[in-house]
């Protein structure tokens, strides 16, 4: 399996925090964006590629292709930042045999159907359940905008959600 140095849920995908902080602190060589809709959206793909630092390779794949690609052995020792817009994508990757020990919550913007979990993280009931299922499977869920911040374990907040 290829080496994933950060798995992050962030609906803005590549932006200032990724470019100015995470790419540097993780020493990443590659950003992998897993998104079924985006894999057919040429305009946004080009935008995202242009936004990444020049020395970082950007791969944009649908779920199926990403599972195959991540499972491959990698002789070039790429260090991969894995980005998705929703927790469901991460869950599907795990179900398909990709090991993720912890997931970083970076940004899930408020919109209809989502309610607030923590600071800039909002989630729909289905997304909360998805995050909870991953927690039960011993995947850590941590809120952290940038590396210099202390990561916040979302376990208690997510557990609290069910009693609401």
């Amino acid at each position, binding site marked *: 399996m290829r080496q994933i140095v950060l798995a992050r849920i962030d609906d803005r995908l590549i*932006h200032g925090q990724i470019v*100015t902080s995470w790419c540097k602190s993780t020493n990443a060589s590659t950003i992998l964006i897993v998104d079924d809709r985006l894999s057919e959206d040429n305009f946004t793909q080009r935008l995202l590629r242009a936004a990444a630092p020049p020395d970082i390779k950007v791969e944009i794949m649908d779920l199926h292709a990403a599972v195959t690609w991540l499972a491959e052995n990698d002789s070039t020792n790429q260090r991969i930042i894995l980005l998705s817009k929703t927790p469901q994508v991460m869950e599907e990757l795990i179900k398909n045999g990709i090991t993720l020990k912890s997931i970083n919550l970076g940004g899930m913007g408020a919109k209809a159907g989502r309610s607030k979990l923590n600071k800039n993280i909002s989630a729909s009931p289905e997304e909360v359940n998805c995050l909870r299922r991953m927690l039960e499977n011993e995947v850590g869920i941590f809120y952290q905008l940038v590396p210099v911040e202390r990561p916040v374990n979302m376990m208690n907040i997510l557990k609290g959600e069910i009693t609401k």
Partner: protein
Amino acid sequence: MTVTQAILLGILYYFANSPWPFGGLGNYAILYRPMILGLIVGIILGNPVLGTVIGATINLMYIGFISAGGSMPADMSLAGILGTALAITGGLEMNAALAVAVPLGLLGALVWVGRLTLDTAFVRLADKYSDEGKPEKVWIANILLPQILLFLITAVPCFLAAYYGAEAIATGIQSLGGNFLRILSLIGGMLPAVGIGMMLMAIFKGHARVFFFLGFLTAAFLGLKTLPLALIFLGITIIYISLKYRDDPEIVQNTEAASSTGGLEGGKLLAAKDIRSAWWKWMYYFQSCYNYERMQGVGFLHAMTPVLSKLYKDDPEEMKNAMHRHSEFFNTENATGSAVIGLVAAMEEQKKLGADLDNDAFTSIKTGLMGPLAGVGDTIWQAVVIPIMIVLFLGLAKEGNVAAPILYSILFFILYYVYGYWLLKLGYNKGREAILNLMENKAINKVIVGAGMLGCAVMGGLVSQYVSLKTAIQFPMGADKVFSLQTDFFDALIPGLLPLLLTLGCYALLKKGIKAQYVILILVAVAVVGGLVGVL
């Protein structure tokens, strides 16, 4: 300190965090920086020259500072104001003032979290105005109430801290005596190494590393100050970059997109002044009601109000609909985001003219652009332009030149508005393909790589000039002679070798993922132990 002076300091802290007088990113790059605040605090307290010197010293610590996408590691404006005030009223020596200012900066970051949390309340109000279809009221939710709140949580605590705290802390520190002051000053002398280390995180790679050492050696052996050093290395960088990219075929593509887009002319329905009015609102108030729920959502809505008022004044249903679609979650970099304002204004105009553009079309273009534009914008401004410009003037400011912060402010202000206006025109006149072409233009990378090299050289010079670490170790050599490790060895070999090693050490720790706060604590421990044992 008089009550009036303390009140003025409180108000200054509010302005440093408000949109006024320079606009969103403008204020953040100008009035928020300790180098500029030092001058103003100095004027308030009757010693502008000393204020400028201390402000510049505190600013050294925050050169590599980046706040991206709503994260805020520390509040340098509070550190700048209270640190300078402490030093002037309490007679604290510069380096000691820096050592006291840094924890104040960490405290100030709480204000930021409080603001983003509390501003959420005004989102409800903006939604209510959207339900009613009343764009003329949005300013209440975006400016009036959030700014009153901001005033309360910034000006009041800063006034109290300045009036009751500054002298007490300074007298307290003075009364603790010589040894304590000496250690504080040791800490302050080493702290810029952390600030420079943070900056190096972004630029210390490839051949730029050689530039760093060259910059250091030039300053150490030739005694060159920052400005001449920067000018010389600018020349070297230009030669390096043009040689490096000489055979790069990609560099010539897309030059058309990067060329000027001509003047801003109105379209069929919108006049140039409507678009400019939207842009001014964006440049000033994009983050006035910054909140965790929608981030710049209310700011974006407010910016669009001149456009919506013009297009939908006779169509209340579409007005409500449009107001809701522009108050959704939005977050990007201020100046570069001007392109989105231009583009969305053009799209609204086309929609009114009959183009088939539904809410989803707007949402997808806005959400698609906001991340990538922030990635490029934050890199250009926060990682390149602001630190390099600050550094160019910091040397002069540290020598007590009050013109340096003023000159920096004027230059930055012009650059920020010229850049923003150019992108507004690009977005409105040429559309999304032009924005994409601009982003794909390799010339931007060339400039960023070049700025990184120049930045590295200047950082090397800064290490030699402003990081201070000396050892007091001496060996007796016969009857009345001593061998001083500092003067007889380090200074004779390479002056400033210890500060260089210290800076590289801080960089290595930061690079390993150790947070800046802990690196600072390590320096504090080194200073305390070293100072007490007599090694430093």
